[in-house]
């Protein structure tokens, strides 16, 4: 479904600030796969997501979605295939628009917009049902401005919005990191429920080793712009958090052994 060929991403090339955020990434993601992505700060996880959503164009390399070259397709055109939920609950929606207006924006994702009314009785019915299915008590509040809701409620709406359109790929960038633990776990439950319902292909970045192993079917570990580990199947099932953390630390240290050697002598 998604093919990344030799993706390189360099920020500020040719300056002292030059940073190679992604180095020769090759990755094939099958339809229906649910991938969790872990790695330290600046490891390249978010850059990878941004390259897939079209927020960034890679410096070198090629991206195929459904065998179609989308390497330089702008994000608004790629929205037909890819939907996303941001880390910041404020980033994924318009606070001054109502719940139903935000959802109406999502339902038109990837379709041609015209002068017809954005909200029809049919839409309202559809949104009402979608809201009722997540049991947040929001189904009677279609006309409430989104800015009046809590962070968790907004993130739930963002999730609902991400599955309203036709897109089959869902990209989650630490979408529960800004929430308290209880809200976070209920949002994760909702995430799994919606993904299973819609049979989506998912990339989820997380800081939690626990979530990374518990959710999804495959785990990627990033370090220094490279995929250092790729676990799936039985190998992944046997792994527990402590072991993963140990491997994680080991991998990071490997990268630095050169420096340490110099410093120690």
């Amino acid at each position, binding site marked *: 479904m998604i093919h990344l060929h030799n993706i390189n991403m360099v920020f500020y090339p040719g300056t002292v600030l030059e940073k190679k955020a992604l180095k020769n990434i090759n990755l094939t993601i099958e339809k229906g796969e649910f991938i969790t992505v872990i790695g330290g700060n600046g490891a390249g996880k978010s850059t990878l997501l941004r390259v897939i*959503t079209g*927020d960034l164009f890679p410096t070198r390399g090629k991206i195929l979605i459904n065998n179609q070259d989308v390497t330089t397709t*702008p*994000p*608004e*055109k790629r*929205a*037909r295939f890819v*939907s*996303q939920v*941001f880390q910041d609950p404020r*980033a*994924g*929606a*318009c*606070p*001054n*628009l*109502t719940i139903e*207006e935000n959802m*109406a*924006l*999502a339902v*038109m*994702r*990837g*379709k041609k*917009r*015209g*002068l*017809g*009314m*954005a*909200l029809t009785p049919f839409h309202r019915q559809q949104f009402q049902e979608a809201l009722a299915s997540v049991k947040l008590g929001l189904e009677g509040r279609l006309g409430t*401005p989104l800015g009046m809701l809590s962070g968790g409620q907004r993130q739930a709406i963002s999730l609902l*919005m991400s599955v309203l*359109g036709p897109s089959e790929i869902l990209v989650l960038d630490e979408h529960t990191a800004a929430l308290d633990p209880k809200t976070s776990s209920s949002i994760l439950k909702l995430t799994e429920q919606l993904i299973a319902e819609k049979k989506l292909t998912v990339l989820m970045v997380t800081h939690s080793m626990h979530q990374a192993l518990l959710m999804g079917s495959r785990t990627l570990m990033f370090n220094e712009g490279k995929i250092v580990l790729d676990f799936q199947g039985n190998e992944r099932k046997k792994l527990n958090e402590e072991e993963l953390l140990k491997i994680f630390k080991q991998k990071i240290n490997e990268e630095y052994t050169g420096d340490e050697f110099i410093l120690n002598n």
Partner: protein
Amino acid sequence: MNMLQFLGSLELGLLYGIVALGVYLSFRVLDFPDLTVDGSFPLGAAITATLLTLNCDPWLAIAGAMIGGFIAGLMTAWLNVRWKLLHLLAGILTMTSLYSVNLRIMGQSNIALVEEKTIFTGIAAGPLPLLSIIVLVIILLLWRFLRSEIGLAMRATGENPKMALAQGICTSRMIFLGLGISNSLVALAGALFAQSQGFSDTTMGIGTIVIGLASVIMGEVFVSRSRILLALAACVGGSILYRLLISFAFNVKEFGFQASDLNFVTAFLVALAMILPRLRKRADA
């Protein structure tokens, strides 16, 4: 204030109410502080006045003005979207260039419309009833537009461009369309101004943006921003209120204002309207 002055204020309030609607579209809906307005208002007047002197149908002359305004808006959008010029600078550049364009169109610095037939010719009740209908129609059309699929996409573009892109909205196209419509409304106001006041002058655009902004802000004192129809009506209401206040201020001899103080007073009012909410916030804190 006598009846004549009151009706005069009402008329100007309605005319500049259309400017306020255009400014609402750029400043509030798109969150794009567009200064093109100071050029597109006289542009509308210049095109209309020139066409009228050529014996053009007055309604066609208005249509011509609106097309001119639309193109002016596209120009600013192009400088900003395509070449990444700062929005304020893009507007200032278009506005400055329009000063020359307007002189070229008119061939002189002002045109007096005396004999020419206008849309208000032969209406005994004066321009007020027809102006009111035009303003009402524009409000209803904008209300309908802002609730359409494209209109909603435009509102999202102004409020959260990153989210708009993620929802498949081509934000740059929205800026082109929004600024085009906004400036064609302002040019329409200029055209109606020329036809009702009987002249067009290249310097008549100075301060248009500030007056439009004053109207939008004054209207917002009374209504919440989330109800579109109310917000649109408030733009026109704010514009009329502004004219009445100005007329009142200039009528009270004790204040000692003269006609040339208008721009200072307007700028002062806008600054005050923007400072007051901050002061109130500080008092609460």
